[in-house]
């Protein structure tokens, strides 16, 4: 009797595990079409922090390095939420200092990133030994650039395959908030840095996809709380009025296809000030966790 109950328990456990693994998947059989076809809910992809930083930097603002998060090796992070959000923050800071070609600072940020990765049991492509080798390498900045680019892609792949999307959601959110915070506060004049304001405004699209991804895991209490925390920032982005582009959807100049049309987003000066204040509040909140 005991063995039978144990056996049923194991089967139920395995079934439950397989259900969790295929989260978001639905089965659909279309009449008259292929048998056993599966249909998935939409999967949301979003740019990595490096790509967000790349696009923002192309608007030619001068990074204020004082805005980057101070490294405190004595700081203890009490839970996975704090560790994940800070991992996101430091991953973005690493992207900024690498682009600023500050090797010493980049190595320090990399140390913090690896420390937080090990605290969260994320085994990344680059290990502490790799960093030690990089330090003795002539092309340190190139190597750091490579690692910085690959880190987040690595996080996505590792955390998704381990079904740890809750951690990935928090890392992504921390990294986006940091990118927006550092960029917006590096800009001290709305008119002179209008291109940067435009670039930050259009990040609305990337941020929305990041939030759509995170929203899929809101049953997790920590994720639900975080979504509540960023709801005002979501609102600020939603309030930006879209401006329709008048160009044709498809046109051909020279031999290249041009995809035009669509919309662009530009924050007003008041919206930009509110946006900055909200980002400052969020960064402080994440650091104090």
């Amino acid at each position, binding site marked *: 009797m005991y*063995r039978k109950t144990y*056996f049923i328990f*194991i*089967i139920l456990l*395995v*079934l439950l*595990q*397989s259900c969790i*693994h*295929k989260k978001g998947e639905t089965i659909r059989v279309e009449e008259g*079409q*292929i*048998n*056993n*076809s*599966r*249909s*998935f*809910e*939409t*999967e*949301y*992809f*979003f*740019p*990595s922090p*490096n*790509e967000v930083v790349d*696009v923002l930097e192309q608007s030619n603002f001068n990074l204020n390095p004082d805005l980057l998060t101070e490294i405190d090796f004595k700081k203890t992070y009490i839970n996975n939420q704090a560790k994940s959000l800070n991992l996101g923050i430091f991953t973005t800071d690493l992207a900024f200092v690498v682009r600023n070609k500050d090797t010493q600072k980049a190595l320090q940020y990399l140390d913090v990133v690896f420390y937080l990765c090990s605290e969260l049991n994320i085994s990344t492509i680059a290990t502490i030994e790799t960093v030690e080798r990089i330090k003795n390498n002539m092309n340190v900045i190139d190597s750091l650039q490579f690692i910085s*680019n690959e880190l*987040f*892609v690595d996080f996505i*792949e590792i955390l998704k*395959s381990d079904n740890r999307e809750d951690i990935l959601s928090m890392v992504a959110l921390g990294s986006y908030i940091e990118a927006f915070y550092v960029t917006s506060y590096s800009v001290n004049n709305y008119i002179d840095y209008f291109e940067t304001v435009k670039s930050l405004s*259009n*990040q609305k*699209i*990337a941020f*929305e*996809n990041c939030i*759509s991804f995170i929203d899929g895991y809101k049953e997790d209490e920590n994720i639900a709380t975080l979504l509540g925390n960023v709801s005002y920032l979501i609102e600020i982005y939603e309030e930006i009025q*879209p401006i329709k*582009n008048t*160009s044709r*959807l*498809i046109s051909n100049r020279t031999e*290249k*296809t*041009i*995809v*035009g*049309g*669509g*919309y*662009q*987003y530009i924050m007003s000066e008041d919206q930009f000030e509110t946006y900055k204040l909200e980002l400052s509040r969020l960064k402080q909140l994440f650091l104090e966790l």
Partner: protein
Amino acid sequence: MKQAYFIIAFLFLFRITGIYAQECRHFHKTDVFMDIAKPYFDDGYIIYNQSKGISFLKGESKKINLVLYGGKDYILLINTSFEKSKLEYSIIDERTRQEIFSHKESIAGKIEFFNESTRKVIIELKHKADRKLNANEVKDGCLGILILWK
């Protein structure tokens, strides 16, 4: 003892999908894609991190929502691990619902364009088998989307 073997076999069967998901992780970085992509690297293109390799069934449909930044050149390469079968796909602007590109009978796809404004696009993909498949013919494979940008 027999029960133990049965449980192990059972566990293994239920993990197969997971194994496939892992095997497909780097499908978009295999030679199938890289042979086409290589010349573009010399032209300043780099891999966009929303590129993905994911598990895919014969006859399956998928919708992927991704972000394309404005003022950038893009090259999208799409392929599956299945032989002699066709892929139907379209790229739609999420906000305007306008179809940007559409391919009905491709084995693989390459789309090259300049994107003027930042937008979300939905890539709708459907694998078309050459005939109706029975349940035992529906096999796991991989779908890869390699995106280059500059």
